[in-house]
């Protein structure tokens, strides 16, 4: 009897030590700290965790409510990502940030059915920006189609507004993610008169010689890249090898971290990429992270990634989650929010420059105003450029808007097709 009691007590203790306290705000983190994509997964996961830790340590939580982070290793594997979702959703999960387009695609129907919001920030299914069809999915502050359009806009600026007869190449990861911008680039090619050529690269992208021989032969005026992992590093190295002008080589925001450019050394100098948030650590918020989290020994990692692009992205994602939770609390007049309330908070999120300054990240990103019908946010992006000598990224343009005339109809078309296929009745929005 005593033994049974002991075992039961031990089991209860184990359960209680792993489960979040009842009133905590639970944010799962589907991270990947192992496997081939770990170099990208680690800084994001560190940034995501460190911001929540900062809110707990400095502010005592969100409006006094402590945050619990449930980290689950996906290895950037879609099946494992779904397992992580299934194993954490019952623990009061308020929001999922899947950090993988593949996992996001799997979670869209599941999370919709379970009533838990998903924030695929700058990735995932672009047409999820249509909140009428995807009420539980958010991809603000920008989508892949916004990114493609903004890059073309930047090229237009560089070329004096005329792209007639120019050649633009897209080197892309041969997956659902890599293929996302093709339709937009085709539409923009029809509008601006440039010739689009496509160069798919199979996973993992360790060998791209044939692709770059073709690019060397075809001599496109600009090369765009939708890559991930080792594909990015090899592409940048190969572009440097064939002496392609790096300031005419522009990557999406997932081809734009320090990891991607450092292996190519000086050859990567001048490489450009689109960004939807600020770069570097010269913001008051990062001083607080250093003081309350890293110096206090509470950082998720070793603190060495602070200010890196992907660390900043993790911080930005967590900050948007916290602000949405705060909005939800005000909206529903309670600090004990549910996933449905969190969704409402995300849909009512307004983040202006004044609020960003208050948070210690002035002008870190574009102003955001999410609505019931627009879950994609403002769709703004700036162009960043790599300086190999100082090993830093810097924003070389202001935040620019996408060509809404082209992007919005594509979103409507794709989301309508999804709604029909999945038998979804679009929700009615006030505006």
């Amino acid at each position, binding site marked *: 009897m005593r033994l049974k009691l002991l075992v039961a007590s031990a089991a209860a203790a184990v359960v209680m030590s792993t489960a979040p306290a009842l009133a905590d705000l639970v944010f799962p983190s589907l991270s990947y*700290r*192992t*496997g*081939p994509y*770990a*170099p990208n997964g*680690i800084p994001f996961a560190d940034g995501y965790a460190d911001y929540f830790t900062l809110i707990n340590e400095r502010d005592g939580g969100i409006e006094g409510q402590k945050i619990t982070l449930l980290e689950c290793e996906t290895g950037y594997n879609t099946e494992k990502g779904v397992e992580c979702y299934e194993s954490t959703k019952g623990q009061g999960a308020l929001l999922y940030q899947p950090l993988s387009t593949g996992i996001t695609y799997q979670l869209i129907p599941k999370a919709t059915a379970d009533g838990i919001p998903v924030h695929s920030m700058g990735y995932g299914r672009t047409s999820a920006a249509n909140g009428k069809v995807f009420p539980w999915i958010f991809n603000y502050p920008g989508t892949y189609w916004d990114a493609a359009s903004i890059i073309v806009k930047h090229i237009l600026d560089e070329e004096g507004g005329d792209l007639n007869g120019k050649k633009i190449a897209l080197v892309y990861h*041969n997956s659902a993610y890599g293929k996302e911008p093709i339709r937009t680039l085709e539409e923009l090619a029809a509008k601006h008169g440039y010739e689009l050529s*496509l*160069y*798919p*690269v*199979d996973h*993992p992208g*360790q*060998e791209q*010689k*044939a*692709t770059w*021989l*073709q690019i*060397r*032969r075809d001599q496109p005026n600009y090369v765009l890249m939708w890559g991930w*992992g*080792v594909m990015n*590093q*090899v592409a940048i*190295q190969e572009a*440097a*090898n*064939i*002496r392609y002008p790096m300031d005419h080589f522009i990557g999406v925001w997932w081809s734009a971290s320090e*990891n991607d450019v*450092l*292996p190519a*050394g000086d*050859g990567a100098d001048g490489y450009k990429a689109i960004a939807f948030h600020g770069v570097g650590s010269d913001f008051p918020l990062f001083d607080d992270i250093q003081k309350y989290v890293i110096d206090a*020994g509470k950082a998720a990692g*070793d603190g*060495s990634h602070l200010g890196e692009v992907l660390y900043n992205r993790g911080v930005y994602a967590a900050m948007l989650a916290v602000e949405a939770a705060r909005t939800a609390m005000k909206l529903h007049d309670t600090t004990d929010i549910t996933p449905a309330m969190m969704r409402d908070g995300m849909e009512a999120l307004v983040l202006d420059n004044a609020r960003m300054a208050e948070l210690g990240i002035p002008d870190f990103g574009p102003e955001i105003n999410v609505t019931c019908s627009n879950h994609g946010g403002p769709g703004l992006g700036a162009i960043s450029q790599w300086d190999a000598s100082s090993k830093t990224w810097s924003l070389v343009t202001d935040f620019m808007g996408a060509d809404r005339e082209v992007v919005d109809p594509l979103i409507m078309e794709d989301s309508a097709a999804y709604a029909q296929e999945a038998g979804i009745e679009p929700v009615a929005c006030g505006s």
Partner: protein
Amino acid sequence: MNPEFLYFIETVLNGLMAGVMYSLVALGFALIFKASGIFNFAQGVMALFAALTLVGLQTGQVPFAHLINAIFGTQIHHFGWELPAIIAIVGTLGVMVAFAYLFEGLVLKHLVNQEPIILFMATIGLAYFLEGFGDLMWGANIKAMDVGIPSGGSFWWEDVTRTWAPEDSGYFGMYIDKLDVVAAIVALVLVSALVAFSQYTKFGRALRAVADDHQAALSVGISLRTIWVVVWSIAGFVALVAGIMWGAKSGVQFSLSLIALKALPVLILGGFTSIPGAIVGGLIIGVGEKLAELYIGPLVGGAIENWFAYVVALVFLLFRPQGLFGERIIERV
């Protein structure tokens, strides 16, 4: 010459060079299989581990720093010195020999005379262990490989070949990566040395005897354990060479272990037991996939070079299962 024909030659040339890079990985597989009948699933991870160790030693990184800091609350990451490349390479070689010694002592010696599938399973375990161990020891960051090997397109070759096409054709010369040329020279030296070692030394003959029959080799006084340590050490050295070359292309990162996938069609084509076969197989695969990507790829949407290599290997398998240079399979009843 017609620029189109020159592009064709350029593709073939670059295919040959890419093939050499595949061969460097395939060599490690062939070496272990030839000497011990084990298909070493961990060869790609060994290349990764060797490259991580080399960069770690070169840059003065403290091994297991993350673990040490987590346990003792310290903040140490670097020793504060940098080693010349050659010393770091010798140091890494020492680590790979120590690894071979440990693997033999802890795993292989307990599996003498076991079925090949059991030994194969052991190497799968080794692959996963070594990947995690490498991560723990050196961290998961992407590291630049800089051992002084030149890389990038050769200006000289471009200038020479530019004159081969008519002046008004706009032809801008042929591309060849200096790193690939270095890799080809290294591979040539490596294969010559390995073939000489295998064919003309007493130790080489002992290696082949062990591959034929463990028990029979033991009965004539060949020390199986010594042979295994030596062959795994040599495979470690080949892995280091492959790790350096591939690491210089993409940076040293965990994707490096996936280069093993590039070696499989090469082995099927060249034969699992042949060192020259690994080279010839690599060249055929390299040229085949590059030509396919350039000429067939655009017709079918591109990105075919990965699977095309396996199709070539599969077709070859149907007609010559032992590979180009593999030993003929004869079963007597």
